């Protein structure tokens, strides 16, 4: 009985691999069709050997670390500023009236729209990339923090008043925890956007290391195999970030009623 159950759990997990395997098979079939196809759909063994190549030369690792550091710096700065501004706008009506219209106008401009200006002002190096990532993680944090803090229960605030709790304590112990599900959604989006925008900005601001830059260089020298290795690494890294953050937030929000 026990083993049967184990098998069904294993089978369930296996389902996630069905589609990738099918895609790989299709890829292999297409790449074997002719030499012309093999240029765009690089055969799997070629990809594997170039993966080995970039791993051994260390260039994958160096560029991955560079990208991750850009992403995390931007996420940290943009996220904290977003948390602060979202809190300010949610808790202070004057600030909301003052900053709100500007914020909502500015956020309508797509990130790509800022690229020429940022390039002009800050060059095409690390600063410009980090700034793009900051912006990408800033918006979702502001919006979700704002929404979360506005959703705090009046009843809980009354309890805080009855207990003679200070404003800062109310923010720290009532507002923030009760907004935490929203804030985590914000971080979740910010995390995804920061990774996407890191790679995007590396493709556009090519100075310095990064997976995007590696990809750009590979494309220039017609190394489709390395481009594909980059695409795969970006996808897998994003997935790992996603999964680990979901785990973390599930643990931190364990006080919530599980539906």
């Amino acid at each position, binding site marked *: 009985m026990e083993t049967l159950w184990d098998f069904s759990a294993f089978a369930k997990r296996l389902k996630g691999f069905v589609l990738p395997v099918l895609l790989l098979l299709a890829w292999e079939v297409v790449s074997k069709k002719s030499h012309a196809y093999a240029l765009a759909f690089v055969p799997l063994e070629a990809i594997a050997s170039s993966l080995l190549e970039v791993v051994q030369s260390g260039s994958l690792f160096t560029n991955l670390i560079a990208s991750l550091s850009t992403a995390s710096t931007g996420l940290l700065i943009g996220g904290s500023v977003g948390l602060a501004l979202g809190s300010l706008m949610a808790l202070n009506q004057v600030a909301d009236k003052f900053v709100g219209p500007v914020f909502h106008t500015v956020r309508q401009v797509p990130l790509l729209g800022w690229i020429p200006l940022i390039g002009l002002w800050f060059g095409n190096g690390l600063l410009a990339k980090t700034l793009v990532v900051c912006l990408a993680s800033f918006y979702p944090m502001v919006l979700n923090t704002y929404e979360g803090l506005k959703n705090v229960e009046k*009843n*809980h605030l*009354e*309890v805080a*008043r*009855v*207990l*003679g*709790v*200070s404003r800062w*304590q109310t923010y720290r*112990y*009532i507002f923030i*925890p*009760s907004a*935490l599900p929203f804030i985590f959604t914000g971080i979740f989006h910010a995390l995804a956007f920061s990774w996407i925008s890191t790679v995007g900005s590396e493709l556009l601001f090519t100075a310095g290391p990064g997976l995007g830059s590696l990809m750009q260089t590979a494309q220039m020298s017609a190394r489709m195999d390395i481009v594909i290795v980059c695409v795969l690494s970006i996808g897998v890294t994003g997935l790992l970030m996603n999964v680990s953050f979901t785990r973390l937030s599930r643990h931190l929000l*364990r*006080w*919530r*009623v599980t539906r």
Partner: protein
Amino acid sequence: MTGLPALSSRIVPPRSKYSMSNLIHPDFSRSAKSMSGELSIQSLHKQYPLEKKRLNVLEDINLNILPGEFVSIVGPSGCGKSTILRLVVGLDADYQGRILLDGDPIKSTCTERGIVFQDHRLFPWMTVADNIGFALINRDVPAAEKRDIVARNIQRVNLGGFENAYPHQLSGGMAQRAAIARALVNEPKILLLDEPLGALDALTRLYLQAELQRIWIEHRSTMIMVTHDVEEALFLGDRVVVMQSNPGRIKRVVNVPLDHPRDRSSPVFHRLKDEILEDLIDTDSAAQAKRAKAEFYSLPRADVG
């Protein structure tokens, strides 16, 4: 028994067939403090704005509550009985008249006044122990002592073993007990209970009524409870304040000349219950008649209440 304050002899006359000595907490040092907690409400008026008009919620409320007394307030919905508690606890300072606790006017909230609401209002992100401990956040005592106080109060409401449970893991009755512990942890001079058992099932209610009584006897602080349940009001209250609505006024104050713990089947208990119910039905039908009359003459409803 000589160490007992005069108060308890009032509650438990020596002729009582129920001996209270086994119900009273041995820690009498607390009872000295409990001799404060005298609440005086003097010509209290309260209005709410309603469509440019001002609706009288409370009109000329006068009530003196002795230290250590348990007063129940019953009345129809909308008679402002919960509003009184909100004013006493200090959540609303917009009223006319005077509310004095031990002679000092009440201006805002303070830990010497505790309140338990109908919904437990525990913070879902904190465990039971953290919820109760949060009430001590600004108390100037070392962390270890805070932990002791919390543990003692968890024992006091019989929640031992649930220190680390989150509110969603508790039953309604358990959550309400945790809320009572949170209100008691600062040893308030006066504890306000705003329909604390209103949302619970009948059996849990009966059980918690007895629990409340035990806590009241141990804690010896003044308590005011608002309730819809006349039997509950009579079971716990030294006095029962009967209110009427439109505008909210005190209709009658009933003294309950029965010993604690009370026998719900005693004839006096039944007579008082019938009397109070009659009062309530009376005010209800009177208000209805008034409303019907107002509609008949098509007066705006706000004029009559």
